[in-house]
Each structure stands twice: as structure tokens, then as C-alpha cells.
């Protein structure tokens, strides 16, 4: 097996008193795409948001167990949460650019890190936009408001914004769910490119997409990790009947 980047140990998660993640344990390999699939409400987003402690912002939510990234439990009391989030980037299901210019959207992460050098910011913005396969479409209008972009472009802008701070891990929550097939294809190609440099965890509702882009696939149901394996095995000979039922579309 490849180098392990994220290790999840007996992880539980509660909203109020309700347990939505039940004793999850899994190892997520470095420089690979790990897909998370499962029926709506099974806890995919919650799991993803646990990896960068995004759930901290939710009132009454509570985590139990450990998630270890590079040998460090990110739920330790003395962990620097802001530092965790810098290392673990996130792209949300609904694209959410800031109401700022295209340039400022990408530069934001650098600015909050205290980067002041105009030249280095410009360089990083260009590189991130190129990495997100958006540069050619926006290079002549970097000062335009980000809301003027199409949905697919906005989502790639959000990817560029996440890349600009050079994270090591990229979490993507259904990044293509609101996009048309062409834009989706672009993002899928992009993910293949990105995995050379990043460890990617991606939630998707689309079975074909999961089969196409991920190296490993985890199947969640009702807050439990049912099965986790190399993608081709999950899709051809899953060990659990319930996984097969889900993949073949017999429910969910």
C-alpha cells in the first residue's frame, strides 16, 4: 500500500445528541484520490468536514476519537486549528467565491498569511489559476468580480483559491454536482492532474464519476463505513451485498 497521509481511528461525531458518524477507522493514502460514496444523509460531508475541523463552527457538534495527519492528531487539545486548515484545503459543494475580484479571490489565502510582496502574489495567483485550468479563460479580466464567471468557472476559481495556499490535502465535497458534463469533465481531468501533488478526498453522488476518478473508494451508510478498498474492487467484486446493491442502483 502507498504512504498513509491521514489515519482515522475510531472516530465518532455527534450533532447535539445525535450520532452521525459511528466508529470510523480508515487510512487515506498520500497522492491518491480517495472517493467517498453513500446515500444522502449518511455522513459524507460530516466526515469530510471533520478532516479540516470545519465542523468546529457548528453549535453543539462534538467529535470523539482521532484523526491523525502526518503523525499528529488534529483533535488534540493543543493543536493549532488554523494551521490544520492551512494544510488541509477544502472545495465546497456549492461554489462560494468571495464578492471580490477574480484576482483577490485567489490572493486572499496569501494575504491572510501575511504575504505582501506584490510580485510574489501575482506569481502565485497565475500559477494557481493555471493549475486549476482557468488561467486562459480569465487572464484578461482578473479585476472583474468573481460573480461574473459561469458556475463551472466559479468552481474552478474556488479550486484555484484553495491551491494558492499550497495545502497538502484537498477535500472536495461534490465539486461537480452543480455543473454540466463539459465542466464536470474539466474538473475530473483537473483532479487527475492535482493528485500528483496533493492527497485528495472527494465526495461524490455519481457512481461513474467515483469509478473514473478515484483510486480508492469508501462506501458509507447511516454513519458507518461499510466497505473501503481499491476502487476497481469496490465496483467489480464488493465483499458486502449492501455495497453491491448501492452501486448497482438498487437503492439510494
Amino acid at each position: 500500500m502507498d504512504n498513509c497521509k491521514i489515519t482515522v481511528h475510531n472516530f465518532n461525531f455527534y450533532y447535539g445528541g445525535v450520532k452521525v458518524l459511528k466508529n470510523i477507522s480508515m487510512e487515506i493514502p498520500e497522492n491518491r484520490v480517495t472517493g467517498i460514496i453513500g446515500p444522502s444523509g449518511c455522513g459524507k460531508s460530516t466526515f469530510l468536514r471533520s478532516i479540516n475541523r470545519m465542523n468546529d463552527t457548528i453549535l453543539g457538534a462534538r467529535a470523539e476519537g482521532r484523526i491523525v495527519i502526518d503523525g499528529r492528531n488534529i483533535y488534540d487539545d493543543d493543536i493549532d486549528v488554523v494551521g490544520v486548515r492551512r494544510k488541509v484545503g477544502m472545495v465546497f459543494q456549492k461554489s462560494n467565491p468571495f464578492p471580490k475580484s477574480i484576482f483577490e479571490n485567489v490572493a486572499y489565502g496569501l494575504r491572510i498569511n501575511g504575504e505582501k510582496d506584490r510580485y510574489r502574489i501575482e506569481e502565485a495567483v497565475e500559477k494557481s489559476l493555471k493549475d486549476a485550468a482557468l488561467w486562459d479563460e480569465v487572464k484578461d479580466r482578473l479585476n472583474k468580480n468573481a460573480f461574473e464567471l459561469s458556475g463551472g468557472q466559479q468552481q474552478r476559481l474556488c479550486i484555484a483559491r484553495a491551491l494558492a495556499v499550497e495545502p497538502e490535502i484537498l477535500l472536495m465535497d461534490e465539486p461537480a454536482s452543480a455543473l454540466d458534463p463539459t465542466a464536470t469533465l474539466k474538473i475530473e481531468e483537473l483532479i487527475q492532474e492535482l493528485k500528483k501533488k496533493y492527497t485528495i478526498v472527494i465526495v461524490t453522488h455519481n457512481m461513474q464519476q467515483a469509478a473514473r476518478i478515484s483510486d480508492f473508494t469508501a462506501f458509507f451508510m447511516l454513519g458507518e463505513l461499510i466497505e473501503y478498498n481499491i476502487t476497481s474492487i469496490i465496483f467489480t467484486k464488493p465483499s458486502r451485498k449492501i455495497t453491491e446493491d448501492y452501486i448497482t442502483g438498487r437503492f439510494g
Partner: protein
Amino acid sequence: MAYSRIKENTIHGLFFFNGVLVIVVLVGIFVLLITKSMPAFKEISLLHFLFSFKWNPTASFVEPSYGIWSMIVSTFMVSIGALFIALPLGVGTAAYLSDVASYRVREIFKPLVEILAGIPSVVIGFLGIVLVGPVIAKIFRLSNGLNALNGAILLAIMALPTIISLSEEALKGVPKSFEEASLALGATKWQTLTRVKIPAALSGIIAASMLGMGRAIGETMTVLMATGCALAMPKSFLDSVQTMTATIAIELGEVPYDTTHYYALFAIGLVLFIITFVINMISDIILHKYQRVIK
């Protein structure tokens, strides 16, 4: 059937009547101010009225003069000064309430803000005389603390509730997804607030401060009590000043009917009316623009 129809029509008519009444009153006041102030301009030139420093309508040996420029400056000094104090405090409080405070603190704080809004202006003015004034006098070593600064502080207190509640609304209206995007990039709460949330809520905050300012400009009792009432061009915030409102309040009771002085006081009212009207209009335009952006 017929009965409910009548009821429906009556209610409809009532609401319509209310709406019309508001407009009639507004226009009525405007027309009244104009007709009452027009005679003043038979004697005084408009330019002299607006831009001359000297207000001395009761001069007996020299020509009386009717310049309100020092009052306009005083009014703006006091209210812009108030804004300078109230804006950071108000926005800071709003940010605290919307982002930091626990539910419990918020529930205690909000009614307090509303109570603050309900304090009569005489009481605030009183506070200016017995508390703020002496403190200012002590700090700056003045003989008394009744000056523009005092008025600005008091008006700031009065503008705070408006600024706090409207700014808090504006901050709450910022979509949570902006905040999450910022945090996910490794921004601190503070960075998220100052670089994403406040800019996104800016037009709402500007509108809030304009409304607060509109109120401050029209405020009479507080400034009458706390600013020292001196009719001269103020040189600094530590000078005593007399605002337009204070002048009207002081002089209208004593002035002989049907004199130029009498009409000039109405003209001051007209200028005030126009200033507040314009400020309210600007804040309304900004607010509308802001609501469109959020949608």
C-alpha cells in the same frame, strides 16, 4: 358575502388612507416650511444666509445679520464627530454580537440596546452636564466641558442602538458560505470578520450609519444642554458650539411674530429638513443596492 366584502374594502381603504396621510403630512410640513421661510429671503440673500458667519438678528445699533454658516458647521461637527465615535463602537459591538457572543449573552444584550434607544434625550443631555462635561473639563483642563466634543459623545450614545442593530442585521445577512470559505483557507476568525464579513456587509453598515447620523443631525435637546450654546465659528472640538436645532429651540419662543428673524428661524428648519431628507435618501439607496447584492 356582502358583509365580508364591505369589511375587506373598509380595511383596504383604511390602509390606503394611512399611506396617503403620511405623504400629506410630509408634504404639508415641507410646504409650511417653505411658505414660512420665503418672507425671510425678501430681506436676506440666500448666499448670505447660508454662508455668512454672523448670526445677530436682534442687533439694535448695527444692521442685524442672519448668517447660519457657523451653525451648519457646528451641526456637522457634532454629528460627524458622533459618527466617528459611534461607528467603530457600534460595528464592533455588532460584530461581537453576531460572531462571538454566546446565545445567552446575546439575549441579555439585545434588550439592553433597545432600552438605550428608549432613553429620553433630556436624560442624555443631563448626563452630559453632570458627567461627560466635568470629565472633559478635567482631561483637557477647561473651565467647563460643555462643547462640541461633549455633544458628539452624547449623540454617539444616541446613535449607537441604530448602528448596532442595523449593522448586526447586515453582518447576519452575509452568507455563511463566505465565512466557511475563509476559515477553510486558514483564516482566523478575526481575519474572516475584517476581510470578508465586514466588506460584504459594508453597504448595510454605511446605511446604518447614515440613519444614525440623520437622527443625530435633528437631535435638539441633548445638544442644547451639552454643547454650551455659543454662536461663533468653532475652531476645535473643545469650543462651545450652537447647532441649528438649538438655535431654533432657543429663539423661536421669544421672537416677535412676523419679523425677518421669525421667518429666518423657519428657514433654518427648512435647511435642516433638506439635509436630513437627503441623508435618509442616500441611506435608502445604499440599503436597496445592498439587498439586491445579497439576493
